[in-house]
């Protein structure tokens, strides 16, 4: 037995040496499991491949042939796309469902807007325009991920640089970088997107934690989404992070309404073997504050309420399970009693029954006892046009227009460009700011309607970025302590281990707008109607011009002496009876 263990550890050592020597390419994978307070379970898979010493392609070099590309762990298909279009930083997310910020808190992956979202930073040279490369990038990614990213065309592309700052560093080219951002809320993520996603991983879904990504289960989750994030880290290299995030509901899966979960129960699979080329492979479980739970098997390490399982090749199959033995069935928390988990809560809706006009309302609630400043971004396709002069801000029905500052607005160009509205909202402590604005719904061209036109158009989510907390505008001020002091739940979960230092984006749910839809047999009706009118007018004019009028003399009869006068009237009229067309 001892020998066997020794042999195994030698084997593991050999494998780790292998992974380390792989030409400066490193692969790390981890799975984070977080029980949520409404009984659900957030699972976040993160697969990071680092290409050491690499740097993004300089767009100036696009005119020459690219150097040969040799990859060991880095996904070749993605690498080729990045090189081909000289992309410095890329973020693609495909999500389905509505992220419930109030109950689930901030997501581990910030990009949770429903549908597809793609944004990229690219160097801007005169050689090939950024827009050309952006188009090529969209189409390449659409082909790679089997998603309708080709629809992210100029009608949806904006450049909101304040909200979407680069997450890595930008290489020091001699020219500036440009941002392109587009969202397609109606895109749905499904198995056909997950399959190419898994093929980008060095171990595919055959070993390592990616084996847990069982399409039958993860697409049954209440919320699920995948993301591809490429960034350049200066003096380190190019990093590709593939992420999959899902909110699963163990209460729904269980027969007796308990929230106990295990890898097998939520994914219907367990981690059978480690990925042999991963430098580190971890399963992390965030421990809930209550004490009445049990976690099996025993974790490798527990730091800050975070239990960690290190996966090694020698290990037996791993199935993490968490149980609440004292609980007969899970009791959902009363939503009116528990405070929201995020600093601010957002609701956005569209009111009005007319097909021509409506009113957009956005309600932002500050959950903190201090003033919060937040960026507000609306990238609206021209299917909804703002009347900016009707923008009003209210707090408890009293108008407070002074709370909306630094408003910038790029109006939409119908049929070609979306609107871009950015503003800074000042949110007084523990209050709700309500913004209203009248909008008009334009008429679309006949061919611009989607196949299911009556369903309406999905509008992309608005994005809020709270950046300054407290009366002074310093963004460094950290209020998490005071915030969490007010919430019993978060107090137990303190410290919040993965709270990033940068400002976090909050996406609103998507909206559906009902635009005036024509009867699609209209062109034929128009043809028939106008042809009938023309034929009628033509026929009458032509007949009047070519008709001949004659006098029909009615012979005078002694019995009816007045007949002459009758004939005289009749012949002047060109009417039916007496004046008769002869032919």
């Amino acid at each position, binding site marked *: 037995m001892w020998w066997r263990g020794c042999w195994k550890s030698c*084997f593991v050592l*050999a*494998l780790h*040496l*292998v*992974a380390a*020597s*792989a*030409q400066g390419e490193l692969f790390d994978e981890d799975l984070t499991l977080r029980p949520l307070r409404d009984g659900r379970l957030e699972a976040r898979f993160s697969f990071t491949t680092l290409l050491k010493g690499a740097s993004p392609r300089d767009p100036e070099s696009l005119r020459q*042939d*690219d150097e*040969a*590309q*040799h*990859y*060991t*762990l880095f996904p*070749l*298909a993605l690498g*080729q796309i990045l090189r*081909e279009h000289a992309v410095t930083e890329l973020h693609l997310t495909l999500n389905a469902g509505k992220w419930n910020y109030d109950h689930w808190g901030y997501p581990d992956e910030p990009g949770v807007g429903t549908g597809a979202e793609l944004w990229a930073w690219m160097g801007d040279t005169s050689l090939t325009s950024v827009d050309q490369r952006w188009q090529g990038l969209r189409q*390449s990614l659409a082909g790679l991920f089997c998603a309708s990213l080709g629809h992210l065309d100029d009608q949806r592309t904006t450049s909101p640089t304040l909200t979407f700052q680069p997450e890595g560093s930008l290489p020091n080219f001699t020219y500036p970088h440009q941002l392109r951002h587009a969202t397609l809320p109606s895109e749905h993520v499904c198995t056909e997107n997950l399959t190419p996603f898994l*093929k*980008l991983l*060095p*171990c*595919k879904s*055959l*070993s390592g934690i990616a084996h847990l990504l069982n399409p039958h289960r993860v697409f049954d989750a209440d919320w699920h989404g995948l993301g591809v994030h490429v960034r350049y880290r200066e003096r380190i290299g190019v990093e590709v992070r593939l992420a999959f995030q899902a909110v699963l509901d163990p209460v729904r899966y269980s027969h007796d309404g308990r929230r106990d979960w295990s890898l097998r129960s939520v994914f219907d699979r367990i981690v059978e*073997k*480690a*990925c*042999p*080329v991963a430098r580190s492979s971890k399963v992390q479980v965030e421990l809930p504050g209550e004490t009445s739970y049990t976690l099996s098997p025993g974790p490798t390490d527990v730091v800050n309420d975070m239990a960690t399982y290190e996966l090694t*090749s020698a290990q037996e199959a791993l199935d993490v399970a968490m149980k609440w033995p004292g609980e007969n069935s899970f009791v959902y928390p009363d939503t009116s009693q528990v405070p929201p988990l995020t600093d601010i809560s957002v609701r956005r809706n569209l009111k009005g029954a007319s097909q021509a006009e409506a009113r957009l309302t956005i309600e932002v609630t500050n959950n903190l006892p201090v003033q919060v400043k937040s960026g507000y971004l609306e990238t609206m396709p021209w299917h909804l046009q703002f009347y900016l002069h009707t923008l009003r801000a209210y707090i408890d029905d009293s108008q407070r227009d002074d709370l909306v500052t630094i408003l910038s607005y790029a109006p939409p160009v119908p049929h070609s460009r979306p609107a871009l509205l950015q503003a800074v909202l000042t949110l007084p402590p523990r209050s709700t700011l309500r913004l209203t604005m009248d909008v008009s719904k334009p008429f679309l061209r006949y061919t611009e309607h989607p196949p299911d036109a009556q369903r309406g158009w999905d509008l992309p989510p608005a994005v809020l970025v709270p950046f300054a907390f407290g009366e002074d505008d310093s963004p460094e001020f950290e209020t998490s302590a005071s915030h969490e002091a007010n919430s019993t739940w978060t107090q137990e979960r303190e410290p919040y281990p993965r709270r990033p230092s940068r400002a976090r984006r909050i996406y609103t749910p998507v909206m559906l707008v009902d635009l005036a839809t024509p009867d699609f047999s209209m062109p034929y009706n128009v*043809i*028939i109607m106008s*042809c*009938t009118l*023309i*034929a009628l007018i*033509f*026929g009458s004019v*032509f*007949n009047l*011009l*070519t008709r*001949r*009028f*004659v*006098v029909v003399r009615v012979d005078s009869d002694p019995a009816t002496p007045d007949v*002459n*006068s009758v004939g*005289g009237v009749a*012949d*002047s009229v*060109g009417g039916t009876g007496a*004046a008769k067309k*002869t*032919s």
Partner: protein
Amino acid sequence: MANQHQDPAQLCFENVRTRRLIIASYWVVVLLAIPLWWKTTSIERLSLPTSRVRAQRSKELRFPVNVDIGALHADDDAPIAKHIGAALQQDPLQVAESGVDVRVQVGLTSEAAYRVVLDREVREPAIEGRELHIPTDYDTTHKEALKETLEKLLAPYESSTLLSHTQRVMKYSPRYRLAFTLLNEDAASGNAAMAWEVQAAIQGHIGPLLEKLSDLHNFTIESQVQFHAPLAFEPRLVQHEGRGVHGLTHEDLTVFINSAEWTLSSSVSNDPVIHFVLFVPSAKNSPLHILDQQGSIHPSNAFLLPQWGGIVLLNPSQGSPIPRLSTSDLSPIFNTFAHQLLTLLGVPGLPPNVRAARRPDSPAQREPFTDWELDALLRRRALENVQSSTETLEAIVRLVDQIENMPVGQDVVGDIEDALDALNEAHESSRTSPVETLKHSARALTLASRAFFNPGMLALLYFPAEHTYAVYTPLFASVAAPLIGAVIREVVAWRKARKEAAAAAATAKTHGQPRESVAQEMSRKAD
């Protein structure tokens, strides 16, 4: 009473002449509008240079080739050279079908492309550059053998069957992507190669080839490693020398590539890809060998998939994963890849009795292939390109002839004309430079296929004529009815009036003048 109401027949617009003029003017407008309507609704169909395309068929690409026969030691062996030369001149080489016109000269002149040199230092025919060295005892008795060798060198491809030639060889493209993949069936099972020194191996084995082929093609190189690449079938377990080995039958080889699971292709460019796969079987399927027809193990562990690429199976000797395949490990594998690449690109290979000379700079290594082979390949590719671009152009002409409502825009005509120009240039340059000919022929091929696949030609292909009628009928039918009706009415009235006038005239003749006013009255009524 009648005086109060004017007789409508007396009104200016009511007279017969005016009415007929009105009807006629309507018809004039209609008739004048027809050309305009025709022009605005017809499809743009520019005329194709059909006669020029047809004329291409009769043209043939000819490469004039001069072969000199001489002796290295002119004093002694010149008579033999002269003798052989004379014999070859009398009995010319049978290479005309491959587009080669050979002219044999005696004596080593400087401008000749190829030389046959009598060399005392060689025992068997050897090739050095564009020279074929033959031993001096190669006299007239070996004339037939020499003739055959020269034919094989100058036209190594079977001339009549182009298709059989291209079944294995990749279709011509100015640029190929070479994708090298190290595939581990299951790296977690323990039998695997984790990394490879691919750059050095490519540099050493593939690089010289690519350099030599640079006149024909450009290459983009990429490589990747995959750690999980399951097979789509179970290899057969056979007994060999007392132990169980896994074997691939001939049928297995045809389905070896599991394109659903292996991500070998990528989507960024349209260049054809030549794949080279080094496959490491999992511990379960190891060792893996190729079986021959009898079911025993074949000595080779490499095979070639026509027009796709080459595959080499690697069975690691030890049971644990190889951390890194070194250049020396990869050397035999990449030699195989290099050989497979040459086969896939159509490099013909030397006749069995001829060997390549050693490289002057590094005598240990032979040239990957000789200039004779490169020239033959150049000529062959040029010939094929010319042939297939001619065929494409003919196909366009046929297609446009067949489908009446296929639009032909200026870009299609422009591409076709450019392709024809490129073909002409290819024909012209074939006298001087095969490389130029190949370049022109490749351009012709690109332009011809671009014209063939022009999306504009599909625009109205599926817009049926019935649709047009359905749109026009509600307008045209309702407008045409009164117009035609009016004409018929007028014609009938006119003929009736003429008949009555004739009848009245006849009556007047018999009954005399007094009846004339009655006849006039009647004729007016008839109008």
